[in-house]
């Protein structure tokens, strides 16, 4: 079916988190809204509605800065599992048109619709149908880009946001992407941009017109890839299974206030470990390397990791390791601002060589964990939690640290 030349549609939701919130709560519609993390004022903007963007509010901007730019902005606490759920349903919608759907992030996906024309008409027609369906079913808008490869499709979807539909053909890249500043090229960050600017390159077109050897010499393999992209060449296939095994699963949290209190910090580590463990198990994964991330008040950040002899997905194993890493890494002097717990070196449970254990005890730990997971699946994340995560006189919420 897909033996013909690929036709890629890239779909990018418009201000996804903020739009979802506006859709869920009519009072937020038409108003500047930003979605933030658990740390509220101390965190950064996770997403801004188009109304807020008009004031100059951008993702990853500190909340305080956003408030200064737009004092009327409404702060909404992010609900990532909810966005994840919608994201999953969106992917199902796309799969009605082609089996070749590659999720790219929570709000983006690539679709290869080559060979679907007989069923659904031209790629342009398919994109319109999807946009209309998304609008009808979810009340959300998205921007679509159509092109012969993933890179160009992604560039295209970004050209007429929001609610756009843009087509790039191999023969019109000179007029579409070449005039764009080099920083817009996928994969060019601040550092690379600086290197390229030092070569006198300011636009994507200027890069494409220089010999590839120059970039290989300056940037190595990255240089080759970037030059190809600038020329509109990208042979990466749409891979529906690409995300089957993530590289890592992690959570991090910014403390309400910078802390020197080891008990507080350990409770956060416990809570993060539980969240990570739960996600590993939900995705049927096991991991072997446990990593912690610490950020001090002065924003200096350090990570420490430890590799287990065996794969695990149990909260206790993750917590004990994270705790020990923290204890040996921390000097008790520098205030902690942020803590993260990540498990990497992941393997799917199914295709896994498993070390058997001698004692029932290990099986019992697994069974206890499975029972707790079942309760949470049925009654919500707060149906069961550890006593140490509850503060007196407060209501439980979020499976995280419960604070008054």
């Amino acid at each position, binding site marked *: 079916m897909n033996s013909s030349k690929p036709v890629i549609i890239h779909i990018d939701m418009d201000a996804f988190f903020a739009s979802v919130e506006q859709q869920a709560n009519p009072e937020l519609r038409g108003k500047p809204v930003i979605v933030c993390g658990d740390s509220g004022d101390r965190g950064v903007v996770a997403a801004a509605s188009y109304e807020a963007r008009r004031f100059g509010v951008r993702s990853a901007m500190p909340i305080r800065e956003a408030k200064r730019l737009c004092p009327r902005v409404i702060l909404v606490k992010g609900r990532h599992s909810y966005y994840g759920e919608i994201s999953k349903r969106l992917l199902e919608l796309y799969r009605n048109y082609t089996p070749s759907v590659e999720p790219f992030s929570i709000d983006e996906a690539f679709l290869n619709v080559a060979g679907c024309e007989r069923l659904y008409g031209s790629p342009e027609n398919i994109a319109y149908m999807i946009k209309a369906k998304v609008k009808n079913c979810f009340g959300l808008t998205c921007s679509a880009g159509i092109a012969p490869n993933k890179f160009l499709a992604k560039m295209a979807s970004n050209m007429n946001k929001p609610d756009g539909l843009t087509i790039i053909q191999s023969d019109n890249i000179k007029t579409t992407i070449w005039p764009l500043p080099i920083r817009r090229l996928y994969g060019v960050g601040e550092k690379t941009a600086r290197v390229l600017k030092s070569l006198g390159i300011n636009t994507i077109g200027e890069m494409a017109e220089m010999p590839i050897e120059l970039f290989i010499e300056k940037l190595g393999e990255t240089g080759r890839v970037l030059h190809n992209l600038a020329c509109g060449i990208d042979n990466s296939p749409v891979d529906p299974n690409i995300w089957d095994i993530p590289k890592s699963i992690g959570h991090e949290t910014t403390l309400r206030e910078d802390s020197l209190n080891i008990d507080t910090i350990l409770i956060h580590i416990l809570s993060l470990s539980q969240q990570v463990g739960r996600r590993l198990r939900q995705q049927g994964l096991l991991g072997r390397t446990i990593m912690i991330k610490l950020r001090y008040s002065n924003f200096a950040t350090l990570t420490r990791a430890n590799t287990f002899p065996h794969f695990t997905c149990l909260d206790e*194993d993750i917590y*004990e*390791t994270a705790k020990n890493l923290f204890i040996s890494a921390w000097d008790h002097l520098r205030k902690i601002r942020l803590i993260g717990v990540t498990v990497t070196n992941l393997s799917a449970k199914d295709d896994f060589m*498993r070390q058997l*254990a*001698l004692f029932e005890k290990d099986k019992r730990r697994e069974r206890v964990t499975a029972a707790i997971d079942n309760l949470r699946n049925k009654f919500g994340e707060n149906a069961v939690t550890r006593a140490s995560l509850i503060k007196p006189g407060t209501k439980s919420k979020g499976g995280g640290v419960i604070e008054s």
Partner: protein
Amino acid sequence: MSDKEPVDGHKAISCDRELLVKAVGTVYRAVSTRSTLPILQGMLIETSDQGLHLVGTDLELSIETYIPCTSSGEFKMVLPARYFTEIVRRLPKKEVIIDYNPEKRVAIISSGRAIYEINSMDPREYPLFPEVPDTSWWKVPGIKFADFIKGTVFCAAMEETRPFLTGVFMEFGKEGVKLVATDSFRLALINTSLTDGAPIETNKGLLVSARTLNEVARIVQSFDGEVGVYASENQVAFKCEDTNVVSRLIEGQFPNYSRVIPEEYSTLALIERETLLESVDRVSIMGKDEFGTMRLSIVDDVLTVSANAPEVGKAEDQIAIEKVSGPNGEIALKARYLMDVLKVLEDEKISLKLTGTVSPVIIDQAGVESGEPKEFLYLIMPVTLNV
């Protein structure tokens, strides 16, 4: 300590450098140089009726030892252990003079024409040496004891998730003493008929941390005489000549290990230990990583050892089995677990017993005459696919 003061206010002793170096080295193992309590980074050095008394502790493990000295005074000081250790190692002459000025709280260490002055910490801050339990549990020749420890301790768990697996369980019964260690994936059991010591209550056990036993093994490994094992409710002590090691017992219940030792096996292969070790070592190169898996398969009288790392390649080796009984069989296990066992043994031959693909491999001495008052048994749980 008496109030006797030498004339010049200094309090000096003289001792032998080699004895001092050895004593300091022994005691230093219990000093936690990274302790947050500065006093614990020190070593207590004091005169006593039994000679010069040296102590190190991290509150979990405490080691004390005595060496002979001629004294013309009495003192008690706490010197930074790292400096003191480095100093005594470098002293030039056989005779070492240790002098102490209590007013300045300074130790003066001299040998030949080399002289060091080193500030003492406040000895009153130093923790009391834990009471050495007086109930005797066992008397065992030092060399043998070190051998038993080395034969089991490597199977103890490293990670602190389950503290009760981080030690060796010493179980005392009428027929002998058993030492058992397991990290739940493998198990070591040494059964010895050496039962000297106190009246042994049947099936009582001590759970001693691997770290403590490693230190004990280091101290007693070349000691011909008997080491005494003493214990109280929560402490265990090992006495070897002039050295005492005292440690807290690990709390918690050691698992019921006898339940997991299979009573039957299907296939038994008698193999030369060295040959198998070399073969496993050869093939383990192709293990995925340090935790790599290998396959052992017994077909008639040939044992095939093989490993397969899809992204690297394959390896295979074959060795002759001296004696085989039972059907052909195959098992996958972690190469390192097998190597650990083969390395710690000194026996010329061992038996490898298969009990099934999801039950442990047994390594023991079945059909081997050893003449030693010990029996060993190791279990290694296999690795399986898709469970």
